[in-house]
């Protein structure tokens, strides 16, 4: 640890202080002059925007899986459990391997944008995007439903439910046959 006495001025001497004041003025002007020739750093916000880094934590989105034609979310509520402020609520659609969500609501009025839900998700379903302009004058606007959050909006939600219901129906169709077969096998 370095121990030192602060640089200290001598007693008041008008002449010394006057000269010192002139030096101060000169120094200030030197700094101002240097800064005059530096590039402008001001961003005229509504007209110009800064680029947002990839990790930026803005408005959430639910990832759309093009291959499977559905949202990645399976409705496991791990994100809701990881949330310190109870932002997330969801309605699960079906169960088992083809489970999904039919409704996914986030009350962003309570959200801290803390990233804990994103880290908790084991299915890469929820992410934070670059949109940061979420301020509003009305309270109900802070409630984001599944169509606002899903990548692809209404269309994606409709397709998501369609795909999951189709898969569930197929599974349902396959199941009784299989069960009957098993039951039949047992009775014989």
């Amino acid at each position: 640890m370095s121990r030192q006495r602060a640089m200290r001025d001598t007693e008041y001497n008008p002449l010394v202080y006057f000269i010192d004041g002139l030096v101060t003025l000169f120094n200030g002007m030197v700094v101002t002059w240097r800064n005059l020739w530096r590039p402008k750093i001001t961003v005229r916000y509504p007209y110009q925007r800064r680029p947002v880094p990839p990790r930026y934590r803005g408005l959430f989105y639910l990832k759309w899986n093009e291959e499977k034609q559905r949202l990645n979310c399976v409705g496991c509520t791990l994100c809701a459990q990881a949330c310190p402020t109870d932002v997330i609520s969801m309605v699960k659609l079906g169960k088992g391997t083809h489970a999904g969500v039919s409704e996914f609501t986030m009350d962003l009025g309570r959200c801290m944008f803390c990233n804990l839900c994103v880290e908790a998700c084991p299915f890469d379903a929820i992410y934070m995007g670059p949109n940061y302009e979420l301020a509003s004058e009305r309270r109900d606007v802070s409630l984001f439903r599944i169509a606002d959050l899903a990548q692809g909006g209404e269309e994606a939600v409709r397709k998501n439910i369609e795909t999951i219901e189709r898969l569930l129906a197929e599974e349902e169709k396959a199941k009784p046959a299989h069960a009957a077969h098993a039951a039949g096998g047992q009775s014989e």
Partner: protein
Amino acid sequence: MVINVGPQHPSTHGVLRLILTLDGEQILACEPVIGYLHRGLEKMMERRPYRHNIPFTDRLDYLAALSNNLAICQCIERLGGVEVPERAQYIRVLLMELQRIASHLVFLGTFGTDLGATTMFLYAFREREMVLDLLEECTGARLTYNWVRVGGVPDDLPEGFGQKVLDFVKLFRQRIEEYDMLLTRNRIFRSRTQGIGVIPKETALAYGCSGPVARASGIPYDIRKVAPYEVYNRVEFDVPVFEDGDVWARYLVRMEELRQSLRIIEQVLRDMPDGPVQTKLPKIFKPPAGIAYSRVESPRGELSFMMVSDGGANPVRVHIRAPSFVNLSVLPRLLEGAKVADLVAILGSIDVVLGEIDR
């Protein structure tokens, strides 16, 4: 005459109210009134699982959110006996020092404005913006970072981050020289800060001051040296200590700390090993029953967390020792007999953050 300064006043840096009893220009007594920003964070934390509490600490000292994140995570790690990978420790130290620079730049800017040097505010915030851009690239947020987790950090540094930080360090060294030209060598600034608001060593000790306030009063006390955490024992840096205890000394301590932070950042980037950044922990984290205490040198002083566990998922008791709160307690003593014109300089030099005081 009795007058109020605050709760809404630009130079109280938040919602702090000072009831001043004046005799002409002399301050006879000062009574700080706090609590306008009280949110009951300690109680809130007792109602939530351990790891849910990390984002709340962002709202304590909002100018140095990462220091708060680190303090609570260290406390939980001690409670649960969690090991932190080496790379994560280096990343933590790197982010802490960037955070210290950002926080001290706010001090510089607002302190300059308090004393009438508005230019300083613009220049300091310009450089702070560079630090915030770096932190934003790494953590994804600009103020409430929440980027320390129990057992490490959530993610590795982004691609090319080290080079960007080194570029900033190089640029910032030159900019500090400019700050020196503008403020340190400024006749008016020196006259307004030297010999004002002197905290003698005994008073600083008696009130439990820490951080730059204590170090400006001749107490060589820095948690990074006294009880090194993370990898602070592996980096080389000096702790500036001044004997005078006035506003000027507190300013000089912070200026010197900016330089030392740059030194630490360079060493950390040089020595940083490869490896994992987070330890795997169970989904529901239940530390064994016990009590843990951790302390961290935040830009404002000794920040510490105490947590009591009964083996359940939530802490039973959380206590936060906020450096600003303790440092502010010396203010009434300081202002006795001071001039009203010096009030702003003295209050600014203690550098309080109200989010931390009221909790």
